[in-house]
């Protein structure tokens, strides 16, 4: 018994150590980015100032004064919030229909939705660019909202579908017997019951929208540009402005890290949902 207890203790300790190593490995680039953001561009590339340097807020001040950080941030918030709202507005009825009135092709439809995520974005870059330009939608928030919503819709529907499947069908049927309309069922029964799942889905969708870079960089110039675009704009081919770039990146990921921190529980539940049980 003692040997078993000891070995399991050692096992726990080694697992904990491994977890810390992996955690630090993931955390290090972020730590380095934040650290670099307080260095001047000149100091950032000097080996003697690797850890010890004179911290400065110059990069941050420069960012808000010269680059109009707040405009990019506002665009990020607007596009991510509305894309999430619209994705839920479409996704909830869609997942509801598939979860409670499945047909023979429900599984195929779900697979088809997921398959759209397998398309390399670059494959449709030119058609998208030409199309949006000719329609006058290029560099509009509306376009970014629609694009963000569409690229996240498959994930949103899949997640909601999984959550809704957990709700006993009888409860929905009881609602039907009690004289509820379809919208009433969604509003009065489904949403309150699946609230946790909907919140996790919304959170993940918001994060994905916030972090999206491929389309937001390529389909905007100034008016609808998001924080991803701001980061991209500070990328210098010669690698000269590391300090500035780090400050911009820190300011771009900051809000989402804070949000994620406060919603950890919801997020973990959302990501591991259906894995156990």
């Amino acid at each position, binding site marked *: 018994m003692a040997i078993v207890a000891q070995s399991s203790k050692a096992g726990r300790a080694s697992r904990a150590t491994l977890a810390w190593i992996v955690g630090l490995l993931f955390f290090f680039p972020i730590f380095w980015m934040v650290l670099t953001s307080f260095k001047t561009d000149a100091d950032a590339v000097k080996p003697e100032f690797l850890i010890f340097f004179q911290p400065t807020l110059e990069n941050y001040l420069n960012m808000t004064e010269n680059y109009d950080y707040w405009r990019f941030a506002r665009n990020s918030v607007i596009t991510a919030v509305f894309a999430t709202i619209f994705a839920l507005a479409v996704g909830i009825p869609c997942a509801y229909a598939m979860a409670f009135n499945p047909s023979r092709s429900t599984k195929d439809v779900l697979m088809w939705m997921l398959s759209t995520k397998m398309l390399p974005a670059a494959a449709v870059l030119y058609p998208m660019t030409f199309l949006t330009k000719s329609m006058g939608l290029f560099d509009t928030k509306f376009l970014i909202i629609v694009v963000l919503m569409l690229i996240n819709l498959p994930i949103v529907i899949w997640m909601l579908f999984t959550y809704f499947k957990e709700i006993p069908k009888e*409860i929905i049927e*009881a609602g039907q*017997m009690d004289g509820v309309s379809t919208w009433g069922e969604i509003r009065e029964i489904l949403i309150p019951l699946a609230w946790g799942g909907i919140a996790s889905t919304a959170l993940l969708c918001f994060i994905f929208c916030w972090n999206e870079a491929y389309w937001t960089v390529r389909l905007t110039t100034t008016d609808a540009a998001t924080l991803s675009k701001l980061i991209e704009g500070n990328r210098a081919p010669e690698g000269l402005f590391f300090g500035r770039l780090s400050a911009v990146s820190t300011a771009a990921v900051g809000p989402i890290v804070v949000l994620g921190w406060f919603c950890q529980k919801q997020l973990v539940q959302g990501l591991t949902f259906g894995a156990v049980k």
Partner: protein
Amino acid sequence: MGRIQLESVTKSFGDVQVIPPLDLTIEDGEFAVFVGPSGCGKSTLLRLIAGLEETTSGKVMIDGADVTPVSPSKRGLAMVFQTYALYPHMTVRKNIAFPMRMAGLSEVEQEKRIMAAAESLNLTDYLDRKPGQLSGGQRQRVAIGRAIVRDPKAFLFDEPLSNLDAALRVGMRLEITEMHERMKTTMIYVTHDQVEAMTMADKIVVLRAGVIEQVGSPLELYRAPRSLFVAGFIGSPKMNFIEGDEANKRGAKTIGIRPEHIDVVKDGGLWQGKVGVAEHLGSDTFFHIHSTGLTDTLTVRTVGDVALRHGDTIHLNPREDELHRFDDAGLRIA
């Protein structure tokens, strides 16, 4: 009013037909029980009436009106589910009020009906609790309360007692029967338990593989089962079936005799046998008799406690006028 008619109703899931063409009428105010083994289509039939399943063909009529294309919410029926299907995020009060709120009843009227239902179902003290804080029996009462307040044309019960323990089941059985006596509203009740069917029903519909085997009052089914299947399904313990010479002698393929219609005598009986297992219920005793000459073990029911021991040799006398005769197809010979 609540007269329910099914006209040539069929139901298929994919290529599998679970209900072949079926006609049935349930009169206004009747307590009808659909009974049959698992998978016989009784729940499907109930769901067709409720509108939760679409008919493949045929018509569902309520009070003479064709409701086949009408959605469940507009049929004016109330349903009590096996799993209770309460809204877990609402209190008992809100659960019961829900259908009334959907129907747009005034707050005053809602409260009046909630209080009346709660009182008749002993739920007054639990109105502000959530379903998760109630026992199974209480949950089922809430489900019934939610059905009552709607004042429906008919109540549909889908095995409502099968999740309750035995003692509670007997109590709830009585309550539902009393409720029917009081309200005189049409009720359709699905169960696989023939005791529930016998004790509650005005009319029993015995189903097998989607086909109605027999429709009749409990005693009609008990006294004159139309087929071997009904004879075996209705009555507890099950009817004894005997094939071979004893049956042929009486001009039948199979004869059936209920355990309560066999007399045990010391000697001079028609059949001889050895006592096997005895089940003592106090009021009755069921003996399983290994009879010499007959193929199967016979079950015999005696009143009270009878002093017979395992291995005793006894004689059995079936009451001839209580014998049921069945032909090759398993149908009753009149």
